[in-house]
């Protein structure tokens, strides 16, 4: 299922499902119809050639299949529903479909805040990105039955509670858009720092997230945060080739071979960031993208403008006053003004239960202790991170660091704090 034709079909999945959902008002039936249309397309296009407008072909075939299915259903139930639909159909089919509106309505429906986040993610990957249930299950290392059940439950709620197929407007838009962007971001982070995967990353999820952000940025050109998110994802993803060594071991930012980073992606990310900032409405994704840009464009870790990174994190704290953001600021402050300044901030955060359970927090502390020569305290913090069962690459990394500390601890220069 990876040949060119499959890619073409998948590329138009979002539009197809969206358009049919608009027509018949039911996501599940729309997915079935889109699936049938895709199968028909693959069969027909392999024998003949791909039509000039594959998207239009898929949409119109899927619409026809959906209406046929509905008519069969209606006949079986001996109801008049089909007649009502027929009446509205002629007017709908004669118009050029408002594809972008429908696509946005679909993703806003999938990311509806009344659905649980795991369902929003699964539904978006299925209905919008066109991933199959088994692909989603594999990406999240979740049993396929669990994903399938989650999808069924979510679609049932959409139908029974009447979750609207509509792009919110007015005051509601900002909140709902933030929810959509959050789902896109979560898909990316799951791919970028996968808890589920042995390999540590799931590039296919990063790709889907970037594709989603990119499509949304095209559809909503006036929303700077959408473009900010796209910039952020590109800038972070550009560094992926440097994050693991040949043995699949995690390499920290300051030790990465920066020549491995994807220069084209970095340039693309920077361009999107500039265009987002030009709209003059900053927000958390734009700030994070600006931070990522400082990292991605510095020739070495030492050459990074850490004072600027720290200042941007201080700005980000105002938007997202969380301990995690503050911890990141502490790391930047440590780079700009020395490990002690960073530790002072981190020490203020040790009471936060969420940070306590977050391995990177302890890794950051351990690193600063180690730079101050406080071997025992560094080892303690690494052990603490280890006890929180971080993903495999981080575990390997911590064990390597612990080994280094043990060797250093035997030699001179070790002291207690």
């Amino acid at each position, binding site marked *: 299922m990876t040949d060119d034709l499959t890619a073409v079909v998948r590329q138009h999945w979002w539009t197809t499902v969206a358009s049919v959902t608009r027509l018949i008002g039911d996501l599940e039936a729309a997915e079935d119809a889109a699936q049938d249309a895709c199968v028909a397309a693959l069969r027909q296009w392999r024998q003949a050639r791909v039509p000039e407008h594959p998207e239009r072909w898929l949409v119109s075939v899927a619409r026809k299949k959906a209406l046929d299915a509905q008519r069969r259903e209606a006949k079986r139930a001996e109801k008049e529903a089909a007649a009502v639909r027929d009446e509205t159909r002629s007017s709908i089919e004669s118009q050029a479909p408002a594809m972008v509106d429908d696509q946005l309505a679909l993703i806003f429906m999938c990311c*509806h805040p*009344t659905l649980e986040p795991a369902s929003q993610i699964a539904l978006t990957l299925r209905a919008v990105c066109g991933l199959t249930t088994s692909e989603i299950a594999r990406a999240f290392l979740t049993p396929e039955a669990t994903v399938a059940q989650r999808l069924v439950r979510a679609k049932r709620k959409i139908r*029974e*509670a*009447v*979750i*609207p197929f*509509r792009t*919110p407007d007015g005051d*509601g838009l900002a909140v709902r858009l933030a929810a959509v962007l959050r789902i896109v971001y979560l898909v990316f982070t799951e791919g970028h720092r996968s808890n589920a995967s042995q390999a540590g990353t799931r590039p296919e999820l990063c790709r889907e997230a970037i594709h989603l952000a990119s499509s949304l940025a095209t559809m909503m050109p006036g929303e700077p945060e959408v473009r900010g998110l796209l910039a952020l994802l590109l800038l972070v993803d550009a560094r992926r080739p440097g994050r693991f060594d040949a043995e699949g071991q995690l390499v920290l930012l300051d030790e990465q071979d920066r020549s491995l980073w994807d220069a084209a992606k970095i340039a693309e990310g920077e361009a999107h960031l500039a265009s987002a900032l030009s709209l003059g409405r900053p927000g958390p994704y734009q700030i994070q993208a600006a931070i990522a840009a400082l990292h991605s464009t510095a020739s070495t870790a030492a050459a990074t403008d850490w004072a600027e990174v720290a200042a941007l994190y201080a700005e980000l704290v105002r938007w997202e006053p969380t301990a995690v953001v503050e911890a990141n600021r502490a790391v930047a402050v440590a780079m700009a003004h020395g490990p002690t300044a960073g530790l002072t901030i981190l020490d203020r955060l040790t009471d936060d239960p969420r940070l306590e359970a977050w391995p990177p927090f302890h890794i950051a502390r351990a690193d600063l202790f180690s730079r101050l020569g406080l071997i025992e305290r560094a080892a303690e913090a690494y052990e603490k991170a280890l006890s929180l069962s971080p993903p495999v690459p981080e575990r390997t990394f911590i064990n390597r660091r612990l080994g280094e500390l043990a060797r250093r601890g035997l030699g001179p220069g070790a002291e207690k704090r």
Partner: protein
Amino acid sequence: MRYICLLYVSEADLPAPGTPEFGPLRDANSAASAEMAKAGVLVDGAPLQPSRAATTIKIRGGETLLTDGPYAELKEQLNGYYLLECADLDEAVRWAQTIPAARTGSVEVRPVVRVEGRP
């Protein structure tokens, strides 16, 4: 589509009629329902007597079992409802947010199944 908003608030936190706190709570609910009525979404709504007044009925094997008290003992008790007629869940959630109980307890929004032949 009809939605029922079920109000769950800890009875320990609910002011009794006659106490100084009761008036403001009643007024807040009156104000919320007046807005709903004005918008044409309010079908019905009422507070319930406390859960100690509840009787739970169960018939098993032809035998009727009456229990003194509510179906489930929870930290927060069902003590009122609003029945709304809304276009979709977005509209219902928007109105549910205006119900005072959402601030002190929880409001559960449930779609109501349409029964043919009933108003």
